[in-house]
Each structure stands twice: as C-alpha cells, then as structure tokens.
C-alpha cells in the first residue's frame, strides 16, 4: 500500500546548527508534498510544500528538496532555534486520484541550547 516513512525518529541538534529531516515515500504517482510541524497539544502547522515538477523550494530558514529518482524528501532548517523543537511530518498527495494527505510517522526534533 501507500506509505510515507521517515528515516530518523529523533534528531537532536545544537541551537544555531542546521537540521536535516528526511522522508521516504513509496507512491511514485504522488505529485504534491508538504512538511508539517506539530507542537505538543496542537494540530499540524504548514511549513513548506513542493510539487513534483520541482526539486527544490526555499522559504524563510527552510528548504525542501525532492528527489523523485529515489523517492526521497528532505527538510532543511537553517540556524535551528529552540522554537523549532517539535515533531515534523512529511505528507504526500496523489492529486490525480485523491486529495487526501498521507502522513509518515514523524521525526522529533530536539534543539539543545
């Protein structure tokens, strides 16, 4: 079946360092990908998205890379701050067949001061 998985369940970084969170997806038909941040007691919060016709997209302090050859997605956070501590999920959509989000299990990012 379809699935989105993450390689690292927990990532611990020092404040000011760059963070990289990885995600593998299995459905080659997926054409839209989203990274979400979820803090304790809150719902997922949109960070950045990318469509399958792109391989890189940048936002404020965040960059998403998409490698369709190996079905891999990554989220890079520059100058990681304590406020970045949260669980990060990647999600995929196969817009042609459905517009439901398929989430992975998440990576906990812990920023050490």
């Amino acid at each position: 079946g379809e699935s989105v998985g993450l390689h690292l369940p927990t990532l611990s970084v020092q404040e000011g360092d760059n963070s990289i969170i990885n995600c593998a997806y299995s459905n080659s038909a997926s054409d839209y990908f989203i990274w979400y941040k979820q803090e304790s007691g809150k719902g997922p919060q949109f960070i950045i998205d990318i469509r399958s016709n792109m391989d890189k997209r940048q936002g404020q302090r965040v960059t998403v890379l998409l490698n369709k050859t190996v079905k891999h997605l990554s989220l890079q956070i520059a100058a990681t701050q304590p406020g970045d501590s949260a669980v990060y999920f990647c999600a995929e959509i196969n817009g042609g067949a459905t517009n439901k989000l398929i989430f992975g299990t998440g990576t906990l990012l812990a920023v050490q001061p």
Partner: protein
Amino acid sequence: DAGVTQSPTHLIKTRGQQVTLRCSPKSGHDTVSWYQQALGQGPQFIFQYYEEEERQRGNFPDRFSGHQFPNYSSELNVNALLLGDSALYLCASSLWRGDGYTFGSGTRLTVV
C-alpha cells in the same frame, strides 16, 4: 479570520459509548477532512466531506461516520467505542480543488 476550530478539546468516554466531535472550517473553505492520530504516530485519514457528502474514505470501520452541514461545518461520530479509538482527532479544512490544508488543534479522546 478564524482558523479551524474543534470542540471539545478533551473528552473521556467509556467503552461502548458513542461520541460526536465537531469542526468549524476556516472561513472560505468548503471541504472538511478528518484524521485520527494515535500517540507517536502520523495522522491517518478517516474521511472527507464536500457539498454535504462523503467524498473519500480511509480504512476505518462503519462505526466511524460523519456529516457536513450547509455552513460547511462537520461532525465526526464514533459508535461502540473501543479502547483503541483513544487518539487525537484532527479536522482539516480546504477548498475542494485547492492544495491548502488548515488543521485544527484537535480533540483528544480517551476511551476507558
């Protein structure tokens, strides 16, 4: 501009009981999707409503049902609650053919 609001925030029910969760979508959105998030897991798609009809459904039993009202708000009903139904239930609103999804803070359901 209010985002997605869900009620109640927390709920404790006994096995076998029934529960109704409510969601008001973000202003301007016409589609509501419901997700179940078990502790330590990613959200799992339950179903999606548009124009007051269920449009898509995930791998959930018929005990899970829903409704969408003319004002686009939605309810999630779960019958014959099981201990395994304990989870955070998230509502996400969007436009039917749009890509932007806005999530609420969820309802934490505990079944004892």
